């Protein structure tokens, strides 16, 4: 029986609880995603931001069930509309993926098959997930192409991916993700490979489609600008864990975790020119050498003795949550200054 308090209010569309992703290697097991939990409400856009190697794409891949071996989900659970999907057999998951979850990847050229026309790829996807005839499927494919703003769709439907430009290709990929009317779209760096003027078009398109269809989006990107314009909430990841999660406005304007503050300061903005950018010295630790205690402690300007030994979990901070002892009643302990930088 489901817990009573969940019946009344809106249940989350996606629940990720204590997710762990491991990579067994010859030199031991690498923990790439460590104890990550978050929810996405129906129609919500959750941004997941972090630097390369933070585990943001792996989290996305774990949700759509496309972790590349030897990577595997070692613990935790993923629930879509209350149904557990992380332990489904391959064929079952294949039906969920596409029908309930759509995926958009970074490079539109590699996510389309160069040997089939875009129409054929759309029709195949529609017929896989919906009981429709070939002509109905073609009709729907046409509507989708029009919806994502491809001019002359009647004519373009029979073109091959190489005949489209990068921005148009990404529109086709979005149409593919929308084929079966999914409830959730996992978009992994959807605008990174595109030029800035095309980026703005694609972001506007994603936002419009989500609003119109009530689709939730997990938007994985390293670009804080994209998050600021698109997301409702944002999760900042660092070394495989969520460092901070909260409403996007709060996280950007009033960051609670020292890493988020450093990250925001290091983005050149049009506000302050000629000054030095805030910089976080050092770089993110490799997975083989994640420090004890808080993973950010070697680079943190506010670290205390407690940060060196005890790992913080997410705790309430501001109007969101942050994994930092600064927000704990006991604090960080005595300040530590003279640590060598990584």
């Amino acid at each position, binding site marked *: 029986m489901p817990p009573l308090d969940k019946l009344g209010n809106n249940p989350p569309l996606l629940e990720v609880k204590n997710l762990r992703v491991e990579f067994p290697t010859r030199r031991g097991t690498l923990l790439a995603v460590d104890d990550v939990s978050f929810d996405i409400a129906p129609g919500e856009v959750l941004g997941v931001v972090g*630097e*390369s190697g933070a585990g943001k794409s792996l989290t996305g891949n774990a949700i759509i069930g496309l972790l590349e071996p030897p990577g595997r989900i070692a613990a935790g659970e993923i629930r879509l509309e209350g149904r557990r999907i992380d332990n489904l057999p391959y064929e079952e998951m294949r039906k969920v993926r596409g029908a309930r979850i759509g995926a958009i990847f970074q490079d539109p050229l590699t996510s389309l098959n160069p040997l089939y026309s875009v129409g054929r790829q759309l029709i195949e996807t529609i017929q896989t997930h919906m009981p429709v005839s070939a002509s109905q499927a073609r009709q729907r494919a046409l509507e989708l192409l029009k919806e994502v703003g491809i001019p002359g769709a009647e004519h373009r439907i029979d073109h091959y991916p190489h005949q489209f*430009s990068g*921005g*148009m290709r990404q529109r086709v990929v979005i149409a593919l993700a929308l084929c079966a009317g999914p409830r959730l779209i996992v978009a992994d760096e959807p605008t990174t490979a595109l*030029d*800035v*003027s*095309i*980026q*703005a*078009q694609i*972001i*506007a398109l994603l936002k419009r489609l989500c609003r119109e269809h009530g689709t939730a989006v997990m938007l994985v990107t*390293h*670009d*804080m*600008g*994209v998050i*600021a*314009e698109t997301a409702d909430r944002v999760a900042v990841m660092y070394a495989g864990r969520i460092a901070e999660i909260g409403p*996007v*406005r709060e996280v*950007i*304007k009033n960051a609670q975790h020292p890493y988020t503050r*450093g*990250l*925001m*300061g*290091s*983005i*050149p*903005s*049009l*506000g302050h*020119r*000629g000054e*030095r*950018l*805030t*910089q*976080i*010295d050092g*770089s*993110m630790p490799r997975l083989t050498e994640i420090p004890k205690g808080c993973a950010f402690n070697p680079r943190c300007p506010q670290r205390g003795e407690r940060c060196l030994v005890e790992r913080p979990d997410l705790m309430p901070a501001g109007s969101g949550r942050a994994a930092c002892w600064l927000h704990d009643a006991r604090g960080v302990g005595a300040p530590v200054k003279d640590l060598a930088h990584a």
Partner: protein
Amino acid sequence: MLDIAPDGQSPQRSRQFVHIEGLKRYFDVSAPWLVRMLERRPRQIVQAVDGIDIEIAKGETFSLVGESGCGKSTVARLVVGLYPPTAGSIHFDGHDMSGRRSGADNAALRRRMQMIFQDPFASLNPRWRVFDIVAEPIRAFGLAKDKADLEEQVGERLRQVRLAPADGVKYPHEFSGGQRQRISIARALASQSEFLVCDEPTSALDVSVQAQILNLMMDLQRRLQLTYLFISHNLAVVYHISTRVGVMYLGRLVEQAPTDTLFKRPKHPYTRMLLDTIPDLDMSGRQRSPVAGEVPSPINPPSGCTFHPRCPFANERCKAERPKPVAIEGGSVACHAIEEKRIPIEERSYTR
């Protein structure tokens, strides 16, 4: 020392450290001759750089921005001499780079300009130790008296980019992306260069690392009086680092101006469009207005002003006649609408 006479030009020109005039570079991308004859196909020429003029003063940072395929990287490669220009001239500190001179004189000139590339994973030889990578330009130009001097110089360069001289024994793969880009900078500085051409030096890096590299580049510029030609597609980075900015579109410079002027009073419709696409991190609620259309192919660029198919202000003249750069407010802009005062120049509030 350099003992060749400046190749007789006007005194005004020699005041500029780097002077580029009418620079063009076309690439022939035609099919092979036989295929062309059999299938009656015409030659195909990409006009990667189609006549640009740039002046860079000593100690300043000139940035070129534009979308992919606009020719900005080709300009970088032309300036350092990796491509010969199809037409036009490049003067460096008063010397015509295409002028004939002896190998030694040429080396003395080339020593003073170096390039930093985008991808620090590809631009460093993985089989060389960092010491040898940084020492190569010193050896090539014969700048070290003996082995001890060489070691001293390499150590100094590594210290300048905040690495340790002891890092010299390591190989590039032992470093992170940001550290590798520091090695690239150390190598570029090793020949005591004065002019660095940086082709998207931070685009492959994470933002926190990008901040480190940008800070380092600005520190080095102040300390060593360096001049930068900085190529980037990121307007926020360009705003942060440059003295002057040039905006490129399809091989042409559509606008150039001092940084503050360009961002406060952008003139060319393409510049305005590019500025509109900067993500709003201050959450001020400014609406980004996505512009329709994409960059056309440089093989068959549109007639007249190449921006006219996407330009909301285009008229018949824009379709037929190529606009010439017109000096305005300390910069120049190539746009008929601005020249005819058909569109007003507005203050923009991208900056605070």
